[in-house]
Each structure stands twice: as structure tokens, then as C-alpha cells.
């Protein structure tokens, strides 16, 4: 085979397709729909991925969450409930004894109503923590200040409030220096947290941050804390190991028993999310392979028609010296062009839908380069698989019978 024959094949194929434009278009509808589905869903998933990773990144890349419950634990909740609580002493021990750990912040919290004068909020998140929370969670105070170690030690009733609280309780007044009531207890507003936005639909600005000691004094001690562990750069796994073994020692877990605490990371969420999108992917593959199958059968059908229609042409070509592979190639190219065009159109439509979604919704759908190759690769494969039989049939025709065909 050489390029000339290939070119001749392409030339003949396009010529014959031009003759039957509508027929060709109807034939490749299945391929178009299949590819369109694939591309649309990939671009959607891609957009979702981007949104989710952005949100998850908000959790902090160098942070893990040492907690009593694993995120997405689900089934064994009852068992988790009987676990020993994590304490501030645990957090202090980690900060002191784990060399790979940069900082820790203890956090506990609950939902409480905040009141100011005659106004009040819904139940909002009260975050009771330590001054290190600022650095660990990258929280900046926009106005005022964070509470100090001294205020922590003395269990002062001071708080930093989020923008949503400011908006909800204070109209034109300056919140700084005002006294608000959190869960019925009086607190002095010393700072206003910088706007955080939302994460997974949660308003991160509907919060009040108070010293953890104050929280324990006013609202009770009988609950587990979350220990936010910030890790020194590139020592994530080290830190996890150190914290794990320290906690096992502190909680006297025999070597043959599993951990009775959980280390939650960004990956924990990402893994759950990936499982979800895997299902979405499977559904997509199902839908699109059915339509590609239908499309492929359509192509095979039309190629058989094309071979029959052009029996005489095949005879002529054979008489003047076309070998089997020449004829095979010619019809295969025709099938490939059919399915390839289907793929391109499907790609265009899918891309268009993705674009439409990105402009009309906050989801930033995007078409990665590999999905273009995937779409075109798949459609070409369909053309190849379903085109080979009609093409082989054409190639095997006897030249004399083919020439006599009317």
C-alpha cells in the first residue's frame, strides 16, 4: 500500500459521501449522539472536579483533622460513639512530641443562636479554638484582632464574628466593642473575620470564634475536640505516622487493635467524590457505548448498501488492477470518514453544550484535550469495527460477477 492508494481511497470515499449527504448524516447520528454524550459528561465532570478540588483545597493541603469520627464513616457510627474523646491535652502532646508537626489547633464547636439587642440569628456555628487556629486555618481578622493566649488561659468571653453575623445583627453600628449573647452568654466582639465564602454550600461566614477554654467553661466539657494538625512541608505521611503512634500510646491501644480515632484529610473527601464520579463515568460509558453500538450498526448497514450500489465500480477497479487490499482500504476509509465526521460533530455539539453550561451555571465545564482524543478515537474505532466486514465483502467480490452487476 502507498500514499497514492490511500489518497485515492479518501478521494473516492468523500466523493461517494458527497453524493449522499442526508443519508450519511442520518447514518452517523448514532455516533454523533454517542460522542456528544461522552464529551458533555466529561466536560461536566471536569467542571465538577474543578469546583470540588477548589472547595477541598479550602480545607488546607498541609492539614489533617484528628477526630473521633471518620468523615463518611456511616455504618459503624455506633461503635465510634463509644470511643474516648480527644482532649486538649492530646493536642498539646502532639504539638510537643511530634517533630513533623508544625502547629496544632484544637477546635470544638456547636450551633448556637447569637443575639444582639433585639436581633438574633439562626443557630450558627460556634468555633471554640486556640490562637493557633489563625495560622492553621489561614483565618485573617479584617478588623479588630484575634484573641490572645492570655485570653485563652483566662477563659475570657471574647469572640471574633463572621461577616454574615455582622450583617445580620449590626446595621450601621460598629460591632467592635459591642457585647453580644452567644447561647445566652455575654461575649465581647473583638474582631471581625475576613470574608470566607462558602464551602459545600455551607456559609463559612456565619460563625463566631471563641476561646476553647471559655467554651468549656460556659457550655460544658463533655465532648470530643477536633485537633487540626498542620504539617511541616513535605512531611505529611511522617506526621500522620507520628501522630498515629503517639495517639495509640496515649490511648493504650494494644498492637492487635485498630485505631480508635480518625485522621481525616482532603483525600478523604476526594476519595468519596471520586467514587461518586466513577459511578457517573460508568453510566456515561453505558449510555454512550449503546449509542455508539447503534451508530456502528448504522454505519455497517449503510456500508453494505454502499458496497452493493457500487458493485460495478468494484468490478471496474478490480479489472484494471485493484488488489483486495485496495478495495478493502477504500471502503474502510469511507466507514472511517463517516464515523470520524460523526465524532467531530459530536465533539462540537458536546463542547457547545459544555460551553453553554459554563455560561449559564456556575459550573465551569471544560473539555480536556484527552477527551477530544478519546471521542475521536472511539468514533474511529467504531468505524473500523463496523466498517471492516462490508469492506471485506467488497474486497472479496469476484471481478467478473461484479462487472456484470447491473
Amino acid at each position: 500500500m502507498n500514499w497514492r492508494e490511500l489518497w485515492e481511497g479518501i478521494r473516492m470515499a468523500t466523493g461517494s459521501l458527497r453524493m449522499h449527504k442526508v443519508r450519511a448524516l442520518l447514518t452517523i447520528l448514532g455516533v454523533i449522539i454517542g460522542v456528544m454524550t461522552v464529551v458533555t459528561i466529561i466536560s461536566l465532570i471536569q467542571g465538577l472536579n474543578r469546583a470540588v478540588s477548589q472547595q477541598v483545597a479550602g480545607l488546607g493541603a498541609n492539614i489533617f483533622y484528628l477526630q473521633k469520627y471518620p468523615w463518611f464513616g456511616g455504618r459503624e457510627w455506633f461503635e465510634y460513639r463509644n470511643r474516648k474523646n480527644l482532649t486538649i491535652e492530646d493536642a498539646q502532646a502532639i504539638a510537643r512530641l511530634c517533630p513533623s508537626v508544625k502547629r496544632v489547633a484544637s477546635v470544638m464547636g456547636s450551633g448556637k443562636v447569637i443575639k444582639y439587642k433585639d436581633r438574633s440569628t439562626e443557630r450558627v456555628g460556634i468555633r471554640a479554638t486556640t490562637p493557633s487556629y489563625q495560622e492553621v486555618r489561614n483565618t485573617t481578622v479584617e478588623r479588630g484582632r484575634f484573641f490572645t493566649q492570655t485570653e485563652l488561659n483566662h477563659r475570657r468571653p471574647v469572640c471574633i464574628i463572621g461577616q454574615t453575623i455582622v450583617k445580620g445583627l449590626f446595621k450601621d453600628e460598629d460591632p467592635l466593642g459591642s457585647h453580644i449573647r452567644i447561647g445566652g452568654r455575654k461575649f465581647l466582639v473583638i474582631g471581625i473575620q475576613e470574608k470566607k465564602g462558602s464551602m459545600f454550600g455551607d456559609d463559612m461566614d456565619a460563625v463566631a470564634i471563641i476561646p476553647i477554654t471559655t467554651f468549656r467553661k460556659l457550655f460544658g466539657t463533655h465532648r470530643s475536640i477536633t485537633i487540626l494538625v498542620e504539617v511541616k512541608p513535605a512531611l505529611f505521611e511522617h506526621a500522620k505516622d507520628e501522630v498515629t503512634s503517639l495517639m495509640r500510646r496515649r490511648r493504650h491501644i494494644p498492637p492487635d487493635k485498630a485505631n480508635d480515632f480518625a485522621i481525616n484529610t482532603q483525600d478523604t473527601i476526594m476519595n468519596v467524590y471520586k467514587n461518586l464520579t466513577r459511578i457517573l463515568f460508568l453510566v456515561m460509558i453505558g449510555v454512550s457505548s449503546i449509542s455508539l453500538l447503534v451508530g456502528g450498526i448504522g454505519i455497517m448497514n449503510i456500508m453494505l448498501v454502499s458496497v452493493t450500489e457500487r458493485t460495478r465500480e468494484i468490478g471496474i477497479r478490480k479489472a484494471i488492477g485493484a488488489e483486495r487490499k485496495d478495495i478493502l482500504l477504500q471502503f474502510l476509509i469511507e466507514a472511517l470518514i463517516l464515523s470520524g465526521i460523526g465524532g467531530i460533530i459530536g465533539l462540537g455539539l458536546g463542547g457547545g453544550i459544555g460551553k453553554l453550561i459554563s455560561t449559564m451555571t456556575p459550573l465551569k465545564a471544560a473539555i480536556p484535550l484527552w477527551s477530544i482524543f478519546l471521542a475521536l478515537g472511539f468514533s474511529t474505532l467504531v468505524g473500523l469495527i463496523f466498517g471492516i466486514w462490508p469492506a471485506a465483502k467488497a474486497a472479496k467480490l469476484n471481478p467478473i460477477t461484479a462487472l456484470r452487476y447491473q
Partner: protein
Amino acid sequence: MLIELKGVEKIYKVGEVEVPALQGIDLKIEANEYLAIMGPSGSGKSTLMNILGCLDTPTKGSYIFAGQEVANLTDDDLAQIRNRRIGFVFQTFNLLPRATALHNVELPLVYSGAPALERQKKAAQALESVGLGDRLNHRPNELSGGQRQRVALARALVNKPSIILADEPTGNLDSKTGTEIMEIFRRLHQEGNTIVLVTHEEYIAQCSQRKLRLLDGRVQDDTSLEGKG
């Protein structure tokens, strides 16, 4: 010796019935002969033509084309012989309807793998040699019957074949155009080409050097005409 047939038989199977089309043909054709094969329909002249043209292989007997035993060749070998050594001219022209005259003539060169420029040059030359230098880009449906047959002739010639096989080349043409086509055959013969044509018209056969009459798949008569060639 260009062609040598010895005891060639061809039997077609129609269901359970065996139909003998050729029953022992012995035939030798030299280079630069001009041979007309005649005979009533059913006499086996088309079958003989197909075998000579390597479109079909004998059921029995031996066919040696340019020193090669055709029975030993594969389909693709036969295709190559058809491509390089044989030029076909058919009664119904058998041009590709959607291709231009030039492209039709180029086609054998495509399959022999000639580069595009050379292909176009040769095809244009072949078309000029049959008087169609000004019709290169016309499609068959834009050409008259005589012109179409001349395109077919150009296609047969373009690869400089050892032999030109013509099956009733004037059968679909009026007598004036037919005469013009026969004139081209005469000229080609004079230029040194070997020509075998199948016809049932006596006046066409008269143009040849040698007449081969078939009847019921056998050679009935093989006469050389005096004063020809």
C-alpha cells in the same frame, strides 16, 4: 510467445449442473498480433476473454501469460498482471461515473503506484493520443458514447500493457463512431500493440489480422487474413 493456452477448459457450476463454457482451447498469440474472436452468443468468447484477461482462471488446462503459468498465481498477482500488462476495453465502457476523464485514465496508475504528477502527465498524454486532449475534466455523462469509449481506450493504454483486450468495443456505438474507434485500434496495432477483440460483427473482424471462430466452447476455425498488418 505472449500467450499460450493448452487444453483450456472452463466449467461453470450452476447449482448441481455443470455447464461447460470452454472445452479444450489451444491458442497461441504472438506479440503484435491483431486477433478477432468471433462466435455466436454462448460460444464461450466472453469466457475466453475473461481467462485471457486474467479475470478468471481455467478449470483445466494451462494458460501461460508472458512465460508465467496463470493457474499458480494468487488473486493479487492476477490483479497486478491486469494492472500492468493488460488493458481492457468493454462494450459498456465501464468508466467510473463520478470521476473525470483524466481521473478515470489515471486509475490504473494509482494502483501501480505512480506518483501524482507522473500519473497526470501520462493520463493526459493517453487522452490526447485518442483525441480527447480537450476533454480531460469532463465526466462520462458529459461525453458522447464514442468519447467515452476513447476514454476507456486511453485507460487501457495508459500503463503500456502487453495486450489490449476489447470486448465488443463498438457494440454500443453507431457505425460511424464504431469505425472511428476501429481506426484507433488499427493505429495502435501499427504502433506495435497486441490486440484481441471479441466481436460478432463481420466488418469489425475484417479489421483484424487473424480470425478465431468459436462454437460451443471449441475453436471452430482459426484463419489468418492476408494482406493485413
